[in-house]
């Protein structure tokens, strides 16, 4: 697979031939052209480009970290680091017997609170609908927020979660990664917290480096000795 990977910028020819264009590529005649800066990957029947820049675009079922912006009497608005605001209806938190007179939304979530949420629904006509009624979702009480570029989230997770597992094991920290590039790190020891944050920021800065996993491992191990 590695020999088929290529750095591309908008307008670059990725390949020609009968391939299915997937993310960030368009078909022009028989040419497949990249639409973004990234790394192209050619599979047996499809082509895609993994982007290195850009804002977060919500996708259904994505786990995101949101920050409560404001609320009306019926819903909260979450900043999800995107060009759209996340819409969290009150029924989702209070249940179906929610009543706008009896329940006060700010008793559950206040402006500025961090929330782990899932994109329940999103299409081009409406703002994304988010939900927190699921296991592991809801208000985040402790931890530090680290903001990274949303395009580097897959790199932070690594192949089958290898990168994040390594960071978690080495620092004993619990890391919640939102697909929108917001990451919450919590750890019982302050060294572990600092180290995990540093590792995450390192991934953000050096996402394109080939042997990043080794570099991160080295950084995590080195701090252990000192």
């Amino acid at each position, binding site marked *: 697979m590695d020999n088929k990977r290529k*750095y591309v910028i*908008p307008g670059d020819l990725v390949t020609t031939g009968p391939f299915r264009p997937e993310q960030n590529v368009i078909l022009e005649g028989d040419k497949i052209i990249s639409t973004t800066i990234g790394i192209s990957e050619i599979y047996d029947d499809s082509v895609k480009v993994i982007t290195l820049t850009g*804002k977060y675009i919500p996708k259904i079922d994505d786990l995101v970290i949101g920050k409560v912006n404001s609320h009306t009497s019926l819903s909260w608005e979450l900043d999800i680091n995107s060009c759209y605001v996340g819409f969290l209806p009150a029924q989702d938190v209070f249940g179906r017997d929610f009543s706008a007179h009896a329940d006060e939304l700010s008793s559950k979530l206040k402006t500025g609170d961090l929330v782990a949420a899932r994109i329940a629904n999103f299409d081009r006509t409406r703002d994304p609908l988010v939900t927190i009624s699921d296991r592991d979702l809801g208000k985040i009480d402790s931890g530090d927020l680290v903001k990274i570029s949303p395009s580097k989230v897959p790199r932070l997770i690594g192949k089958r979660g290898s990168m994040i597992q390594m960071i978690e094991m080495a620092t004993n920290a619990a890391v919640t990664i939102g697909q929108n590039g917001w990451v919450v790190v919590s750890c019982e020891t302050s060294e572990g917290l600092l180290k995990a944050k540093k590792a995450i920021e390192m991934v953000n800065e050096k996402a394109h480096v080939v042997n990043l996993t080794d570099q991160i491992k080295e950084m995590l191990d080195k701090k252990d000795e000192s």
Partner: protein
Amino acid sequence: MGGRDATMVLLDENGIRCDGRKVDEPRRIMIKAGGLKNADGSAYIEFGDNKILVGVFGPRDVHPKHMSNTDTGILRVRYHMEPFSVGERKNPAPSRREVEISKVIKEALEPAVMLEKFPRTAVDVFIEVLQADGGTRCAALSAASVALADAGIPMRDMVAACASGKVADTIVLDVNNEEDQAGQADMPIGYMPSLEKITLLQLDGVLTPEEYKKCVDVGVHGCKIVYDIQKKALKDKYFGKGDD
């Protein structure tokens, strides 16, 4: 700049132009992607003595709300010349010329950007001309497309731009300020090299049909030179030097 020598030789008998270039030689071009921390994407271009800084924001919420389009994102471009960008102080208020250039740059970028992926949003492009020396719209357009790519806006192709013109009865590439003022024609061209499509073509002056065709060919050739420099700027930022 300023006072111009009326007897200035635009093209000497050896085919050398007033600034020492050959007829098919562009000015020195340098593009740097990134550089503005607070913008989502940015670029800086030096095109001869032109110095232009471009910042891109978005996709983001549209304000005022009524400008938003439920089918697609919108592109907004502001071209602005600093008061100190020219010899005599320029009033910083948007002039008729700046409003027009903003519009033509917007329309030259629109075929390239794929904003239909971001309905109800806006992408804002701010172009600040720090120093002007003829051909700012081409330089600004080239820098704007680098900044858009840096911001991660999906694009069908980069838009490269370069001017060609007619000076002393000869078709030349990349007219400078002197040639623009004293020459016979000036043709800015915006071009998408991979798709082989022209997105901007203006002409100030009179050309015969043959000259017109030659002028377009020369300009497109210039755009390809600019395109290589744009690609290099982005690759330097994202993949490190000497990669790929």
